C-alpha cells in the first residue's frame, strides 16, 4: 500500500529540518511520497523550494504551497500566481468565508483544518456539496491534535469527528496530513489511519485518506503540469 503525506514543512518556511532530512525520515516511517508545502512567501522562495525538491531521488517528493490568507481576495490572488507552478495547493482554513470559497474553487487541492480556532466545525452543507463537486479534499491536521492538550484537543477532536461524518455523508474526499514542522511531528501512516478510525471513520475510508486520495491528487496535478491533461476527463495519451 502506498502512503502519502501531502503536508510537511521544511526549514525554508519556519520548519526545523531540511527537505533531505524530511524525505529520509518519511521513508523510514513507510511513506512512498511526501509534499513539502511551505507557507507562501513569494515566487522566489517557491522556485528555491522546487530546486531543492528536484534533488531528492529516494522517494517521491512534491512541491506545494500552503496559503494562509487574510481574506478571499488575497487567497484568489495567490492561487492565480502559484497554481501552474506547484504539485499540491493547500488553503489553510478557519475563517468561514475562506472555507467556503476554497470549497468553491476547483484549483484548490486541499482545504486544511476548516475547524481551526472556531467554535464550530467550519463546514456546512453548501460548502461540502461544492467541495465534492469541485474535488476539493478536506484536510485533517495531525499537528493541531498533537500539540493541543486537554480542552482545546477535546474541541478539535469533536469538530474533526463532525467533519468526518459530514464528509462521509456528502462523499467529500478526506486527506490526513502530519503538517509536521520537524521530523518529530511526523508519524507512521498507519497511526493516522488508527486516529481516523478512532474518530468514527470506516477503516477502508481511513486507509484511502492516506493512500489513494492523496495519490490521485498528485497524479492529476502532475498530468496538468506536464500538459497531458487538457481538462477534466480529457487527456492526451
Amino acid at each position, binding site marked *: 500500500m502506498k502512503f502519502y503525506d501531502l503536508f510537511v514543512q521544511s526549514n525554508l518556511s519556519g520548519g526545523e529540518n531540511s527537505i533531505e532530512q524530511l524525505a529520509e525520515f518519511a521513508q523510514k*516511517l513507510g511513506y512512498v511520497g511526501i509534499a513539502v508545502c511551505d507557507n507562501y512567501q513569494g515566487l522566489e522562495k517557491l522556485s528555491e523550494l522546487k530546486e531543492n525538491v528536484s534533488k531528492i531521488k529516494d522517494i517521491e517528493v512534491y512541491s506545494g504551497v500552503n496559503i494562509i490568507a487574510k481574506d478571499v481576495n488575497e487567497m484568489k490572488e495567490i492561487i492565480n500566481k502559484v497554481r501552474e507552478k506547484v504539485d499540491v495547493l493547500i488553503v489553510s482554513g478557519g475563517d468561514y468565508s475562506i472555507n467556503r470559497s476554497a470549497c468553491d474553487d476547483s484549483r484548490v487541492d486541499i482545504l486544511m483544518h476548516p475547524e481551526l480556532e472556531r467554535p464550530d466545525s467550519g463546514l456546512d452543507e453548501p460548502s461540502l456539496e461544492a467541495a465534492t463537486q469541485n474535488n476539493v479534499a478536506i484536510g485533517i491536521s495531525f499537528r493541531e*491534535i*498533537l*500539540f493541543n*492538550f*486537554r480542552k482545546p*484537543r477535546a474541541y478539535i477532536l469533536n469538530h474533526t469527528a463532525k467533519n468526518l461524518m459530514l464528509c462521509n455523508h456528502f462523499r467529500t474526499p478526506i486527506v490526513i496530513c502530519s503538517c509536521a514542522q520537524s521530523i*518529530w511531528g*511526523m*508519524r*507512521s501512516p*498507519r*497511526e*493516522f489511519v*488508527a*486516529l481516523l*478510525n*478512532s474518530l468514527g471513520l470506516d477503516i477502508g475510508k481511513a486507509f484511502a485518506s492516506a493512500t489513494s486520495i492523496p495519490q490521485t491528487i498528485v497524479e492529476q496535478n502532475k498530468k496538468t503540469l506536464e500538459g497531458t491533461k487538457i481538462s477534466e476527463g480529457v487527456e492526451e495519451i
Partner: protein
Amino acid sequence: MNEEKKPKPLPPSLRGRRRYIAYQVLSEDKFILQDLINSIWHSLLNLLGELGASQADIWIVKDTWDEKKQIGIIRCSHDNVEQVRTSLALIERIGDVRVIVKVLGISGSIKATKMKFFTETKLTEFTQTL
C-alpha cells in the same frame, strides 16, 4: 509452603480477548523506562479517560523492554487496538526528549510478538522446528 494463593485461571472462553502491540521508540536522546511508562499512561488517560483506559485492559509488559533497540510490548483488549495505537501516536515527549512511538505490529500472544518483532528468527522457521 509459603506460596502465594492465587485464584484459579479462567477457562479460555471466559477470558477477555487480548492483543499484544509491539512498539519502537524513536528518540533524539536517551530516556529511562519509568519515564516512558509514565508518558504512555499519561497519553492513554488523556485520550481515553479513566473509564476508557480500564476498558482497554492495558498492561505495559516491562520485562520485554529492549533497551538497545528501544522496543517493547503493550497488552490491550482486542476491541481497543486502534485507540491504543492513537494514544501511542500522540506521545510527543518522554521527559524533555522528543520521541515518536512507532507501532511495529500486533499479535495475539507475547510469544508470537517476540518471535515476529524482537528476534531475527522468522515465525515459519519456528513452526518448522516444532
